């Protein structure tokens, strides 16, 4: 066996190994600790890309940990959609880390930065694991790792707000994990398996004998992943957690962490539950309406915020709802839209949080009303904010349009034009709270009154990379959409 056969395991292992070594490196060889983490993120990104090539040439890849075949051993599986998510996770986290290098020195105490590297690598590694694993209990363990490291990168700032927010997050996310574990127990009771593929095969028959078990498990899964991904009525932890965290953490949490749970729910729906189940009981309908309400209320809440980061956090609730909506439509074009939105929103929201971070770094301003006239002081930053907002609203030429386009298209295909109106209305609502900031920043007559520090080049470079990708996803969506279309059709 060549080394390429081990890529599914190595992608996760490299990140965990980097996590364990970076506190030592930070203590004894501080200079190389950050490049070391960058190298490990880059290595896992390259391996993910190699895995994509491999999967597209030879079909899905299965990897058995320790050589034990399922249903006994833990299995990792790589199909085009999973590897696509993997690439999004590793690429975006590499980009956010480059930004974090400068920002962390400003926001954290010096001695905890090494630990931040550890937590960051563990977080990325656990997300990569969630994307790859094919085993329910392994998923549970990785979700716990992900939740704990996500809480820790909020509370590492050690001020009152962060501790309170991360404690709230910890409790609610533990409730989510608890629901998930109970659901796994229900499924294990009915089938005796933990491997997705074995469960799916066994459930086709077991659902006749134990319908209540399976329905309860489905309900528990929706609550579990809904809580973790901040689906509308379960979102209460998100605004505080994402707004008070250090900026790179906010970008990670809003950009990637909530999406990986939406993806996990997709895996449950399409790889664990039997195919007929989604059409016979109205699971999709529940998700769809929760998501439709979420797109509206997320935007309405965002509108009344006065704090910039809090507004961005509430906007994430609206945006994650589009992804759930795509899962809820139960149609291949909708899944294309949802998965494209995972990428687009990861890039866009990370970019917006970075601009917020740059503004706070440079001027200390957090209140939206104080941003008037800032466009003339920090033109590049506000240009990045403008492009990010445009993508949130879905203006042509940005990635946000493509995903909304596919969602609306599939709403028409399945004959529910009401949801096209929902998507349109929520886009308008997005415009209502994003555009005034842009207009005020550039058009305001009076001068910006706060003191301004020069912005480091690293930060500006990250913003330029972000703008570039927001526009690239808007104009050159074909290759990714083709990949997703081919993968989505196989699911129906």
């Amino acid at each position: 066996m060549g080394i390429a056969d081990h890529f599914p395991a190595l992608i996760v292992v490299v990140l965990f190994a980097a996590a364990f070594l970076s506190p030592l490196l930070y203590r004894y060889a501080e200079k190389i600790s950050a490049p070391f983490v960058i190298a490990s993120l880059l290595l896992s990104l390259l391996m993910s890309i190699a895995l994509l090539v491999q999967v597209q040439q030879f079909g899905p890849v299965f990897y058995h940990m320790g050589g034990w075949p399922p249903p006994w051993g833990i299995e990792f599986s790589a199909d085009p959609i999973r590897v696509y998510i993997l690439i999004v996770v590793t690429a975006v986290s590499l980009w956010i880390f480059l930004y974090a290098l400068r920002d962390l020195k400003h926001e954290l105490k010096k001695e905890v930065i090494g630990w931040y590297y550890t937590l960051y690598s563990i977080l990325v590694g656990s997300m990569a694991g969630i994307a790859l694993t094919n085993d329910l209990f392994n998923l549970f363990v990785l979700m716990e790792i992900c939740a704990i490291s996500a809480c820790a990168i909020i509370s590492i700032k050690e001020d009152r707000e962060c501790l309170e927010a991360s404690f709230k997050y910890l409790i609610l996310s533990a409730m989510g994990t608890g629901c998930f574990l109970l659901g796994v127990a229900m499924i294990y009771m009915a089938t005796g398996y933990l491997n997705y593929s074995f469960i799916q095969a066994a459930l086709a028959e077991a659902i006749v004998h134990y319908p209540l078990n399976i329905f309860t498990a489905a309900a528990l899964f929706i609550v579990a992943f809904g809580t973790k991904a901040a689906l509308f009525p379960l979102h209460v932890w998100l605004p505080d957690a994402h707004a008070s965290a250090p900026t790179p953490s906010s970008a990670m949490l809003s950009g990637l962490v909530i999406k990986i749970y939406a993806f996990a729910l997709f895996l449950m729906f399409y790889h664990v539950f039997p195919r007929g189940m989604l059409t016979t009981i109205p699971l999709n309908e529940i998700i769809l309406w929760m998501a439709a309400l979420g797109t509206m209320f997320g935007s309405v809440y965002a509108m009344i915020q006065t704090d910039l980061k809090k507004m961005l956090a509430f906007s994430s609730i609206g945006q994650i709802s589009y992804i759930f909506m795509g899962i809820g439509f139960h149609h291949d074009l909708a899944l294309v839209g949802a998965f494209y939105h995972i990428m687009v929103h990861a890039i866009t929201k990370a970019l917006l949080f970075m601009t917020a971070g740059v503004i706070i770094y440079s001027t200390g301003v957090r209140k939206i009303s104080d941003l008037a006239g800032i466009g003339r002081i920090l033109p590049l930053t506000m240009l990045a904010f403008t492009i990010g907002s445009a993508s949130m609203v879905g203006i042509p030429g940005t990635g946000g349009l493509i995903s909304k386009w596919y969602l609306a298209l599939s709403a028409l295909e399945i004959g529910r034009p009401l949801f096209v109106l929902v998507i349109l209305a929520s886009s308008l609502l997005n415009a209502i709270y994003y555009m005034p900031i842009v207009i005020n920043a550039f058009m305001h007559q009076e001068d910006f009154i706060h003191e301004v520090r020069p912005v480091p080049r690293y930060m500006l470079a990250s913003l330029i990379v972000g703008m570039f990708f927001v526009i690239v996803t808007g104009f050159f969506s074909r290759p990714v959409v083709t990949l997703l279309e081919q993968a989505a059709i196989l699911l129906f």
Partner: protein
Amino acid sequence: MPLSRRTERRGGGTAIEDQIVRITSRLVAPFIQVYGIYVILHGHLSPGGSFSGGAIFGASLVLVALSFNLETGAKQISHQLASGLESGGAFGFILTGLIAIAIGGNFLANRAAGFPMGQAGELFSAGAILIITVFVGIKVASTIVTLFYTIIEGEE
């Protein structure tokens, strides 16, 4: 010499220096440590294993630090060394998995990769499992000590 006396501590409050507690814990600590190592090494043969054994071993170090003071505890194992061992233990686990890949199995493979199995029931058997148990034992013991130090130092 009085058996017990109170002394002022640097950060305020008092510490009790009790000869009975000190002598007893100094006497008992090596036995606890040997028992901890025993539980770790027999992880693949008997109940217990790396987690329980590591916790027992770590507890003995915490006991000494509690009955004497932080400086004496730090002479046994310093905070730096403990957190270094913590990283090393976890990394050793991963390294064992990677060695399995290097000698031709899947990640974390044991017999399939060609680790020596030995005679079932003997101490040195079960290949990679024994190696991993030792690494996890080191990790757990040092984690308990690190947690203890972090909580104590957090007071100041």
